């Protein structure tokens, strides 16, 4: 394999055995003001606001795939946009570790690149693949002008496409191929971090597997750090090393992948796992079925924001707002009852579901 990106030196921070972080957000918030209509403006009425993100701390470690999961309105896409600099946070900081002092906007945008959900709308239909890549390579001066074409071909090969794609336009490609193009575009500037917002949810299953494989090889061979936003937990389980669960603008649980699925310590995480339509288990596991839908982020419930849907909520949950606190090595949960939750029974990896099914029939 040809190594397309050469990583700029990230200062090694020997802290325990965890790899150094490449990107960290501290107490990040994003608030959108609503109702600034005509009457609001003249009447001086109190403005409603939508807190898309409410104090999120998260670090992305070098070379890891960190999955960000949550339902609509949880703020995962807003966080992604803040990371790539497309949206300004209203509070908190983004620390880009390893960025040279006084680096300009171009350098910042180079470091963190994004792959979007819909490969049909995220590629410009009127720009050929060759000029899309060449434009980026020239703007960022990734390679000397004479090598732009060779570099473009290397990028295409890296994502599993051939040289003949250069003169073609996005409309000539299938969904999976377009997602490869989007990934090649992101890789062109040799980023340190890839933010992928639901990159496989618009694709068919058989194509999805090839794109997941590509992400994995990018991580292995190029040492890319990937923030992978998804709602499909089975996909997350296959790809990521760590999982962060978001609910209504907050991080509610974070842990290593194996840990979070075998020992979830937040009722919402359990509900998510129990909601996965299983391919081999017999029927729904519904120990932790939640009622209702995620409330609107305009009107966040008091106390713990999950309490109205939580099957184990107690009185305390209605008034106390739990913060994300460590409950084990590398494992943190924002639940007042995190330590008291019953042992999780739905551990999928340990269940041998198939023989039991055959007996039943």
């Amino acid at each position, binding site marked *: 394999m040809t190594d397309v990106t050469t990583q700029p030196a990230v200062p090694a921070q020997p802290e325990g055995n965890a790899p150094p972080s490449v990107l960290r957000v501290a107490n990040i918030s994003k608030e959108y003001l609503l109702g600034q209509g005509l009457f609001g403006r003249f009447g001086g009425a109190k403005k409603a606001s939508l807190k898309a993100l409410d104090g999120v701390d998260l670090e992305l470690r070098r070379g890891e795939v960190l999955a960000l999961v949550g*339902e*609509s309105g949880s703020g995962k896409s807003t966080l992604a946009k803040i990371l790539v600099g497309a949206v300004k946070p209203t509070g908190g900081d983004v620390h880009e570790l390893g960025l040279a002092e006084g680096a300009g906007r171009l350098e910042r945008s180079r470091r963190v690149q994004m792959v979007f959900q819909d490969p049909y709308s995220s590629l410009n239909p009127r720009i050929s693949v060759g000029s899309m890549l060449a434009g980026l390579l020239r703007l960022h001066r990734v390679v000397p002008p004479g090598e732009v074409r060779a570099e473009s071909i290397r990028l295409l090969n890296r994502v599993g496409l051939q040289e003949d794609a250069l003169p073609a336009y996005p409309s000539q490609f*299938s*969904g999976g191929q377009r997602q490869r193009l989007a990934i090649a575009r992101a890789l062109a500037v040799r980023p340190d971090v890839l933010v992928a917002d639901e990159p496989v949810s618009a694709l*068919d*299953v*058989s*194509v*999805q*597997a*090839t794109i*997941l*494989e590509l992400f994995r090889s990018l991580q292995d061979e190029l040492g890319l750090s990937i923030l992978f936003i998804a*709602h*499909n*937990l*089975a*996909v997350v*389980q*296959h790809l990521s090393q760590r999982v962060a669960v978001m609910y209504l603008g907050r991080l509610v649980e974070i842990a290593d992948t194996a840990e979070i*699925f075998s020992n979830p310590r937040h009722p919402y995480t359990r*509900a*998510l*796992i*129990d*909601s*996965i*339509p*299983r*391919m*081999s*288990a017999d*029927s*729904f596991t*519904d120990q932790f*079925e*939640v*009622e*209702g*839908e*995620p409330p609107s982020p305009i009107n966040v419930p008091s106390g713990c924001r999950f309490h109205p849907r939580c099957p184990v909520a107690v009185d305390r949950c209605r008034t106390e707002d739990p913060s994300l606190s460590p409950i084990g090595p590398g494992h943190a949960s924002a639940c007042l009852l995190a330590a008291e939750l019953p042992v999780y029974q739905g551990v*999928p*990896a340990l*269940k041998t*579901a*198939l023989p039991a*099914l*055959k007996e039943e*029939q």
Partner: protein
Amino acid sequence: MTEAPLLSVRNLSLGVQRKGRPTTLIVDDISFDVAEGERFGIVGESGSGKSLTLRAIANLLPAGVKVLSGSVQYRGQGLQGMPAKSRRRLAGREIAMIFQEPMSALNPVMRVGEQIAESPRRHLGLSKAAAMDLAIDMMRKTGIPDPARRAQAYPHELSGGLRQRIMIAMALSCSPKLLLCDEPTTALDVTVQHQVLRLLEQLCEDTKTALVFVTHDLGVVNQTCRELGVMYAGEIVERGRVKDVFADPRHPYTKGLLDSAPDFDQPDRELVAIPGFPPNLADRPDGCPFQPRCAFAVEHCATARPRLADVLPGREAACFETARIFEGATA
């Protein structure tokens, strides 16, 4: 005495005919039966023809797509040749449909309660007030909180999950015998999807409604259906009980599909993608449509077309080599 099955699709072919051009075959000669109270799932990827098959049953084919041959029979009556008037008597009363996108399927300028009440008024002859009571009762059954107040809402005032519940309430308001579902939960969040699927399961159980459930999600079909048809390039390539097919697929495409989907219960399994692409329907291969992508293809797969045939008790597959591939492998 053998009774006609509730729904019987026989040798159905759908296609697009344009002047001066060859007909493009989209659905090619498919047959299946759905018995009363049965839950039949159709899975396949985009372009496999699964949604069009469902729309053909509902007589809602998009302009340009025609039934080229074959028939759809409901309790032994052909639905194609039926006069519009008798069809209308069936639609809503006996056969109902739930669409993927509730926002585009609901009338945006009509209160949801009235939309649910419309069908009972028409088909069951209920008075306006009685129909509204029934509508509110249906909304309660679908788990909508505060149904009397919500009945006064317009679709845009409700969330996606509530809208989908309204669609379900609407579809089930006349206790139909057959419910057609076109990816009803694809647009919903996972926890809400879970609720909606359970609700569908429960309500169908209560009213003995048969389901034809189209989806691309293998997990969803496992949770909702008992029988399964796997579609590829407009053909049913495998048919059988969901659990049996998943445990022991007998068509290379089904196997490929199962191997490429991440399974939460087998986190360590490698995902294996199916190489290549589905065929261009305007330019179908002569032989088996899966042959260009199939790892097991032999010479005659490229020339002759395999038909669905019994391979196991209660299982059919359209593959010449199924015995060699799967019995050799499991022995």
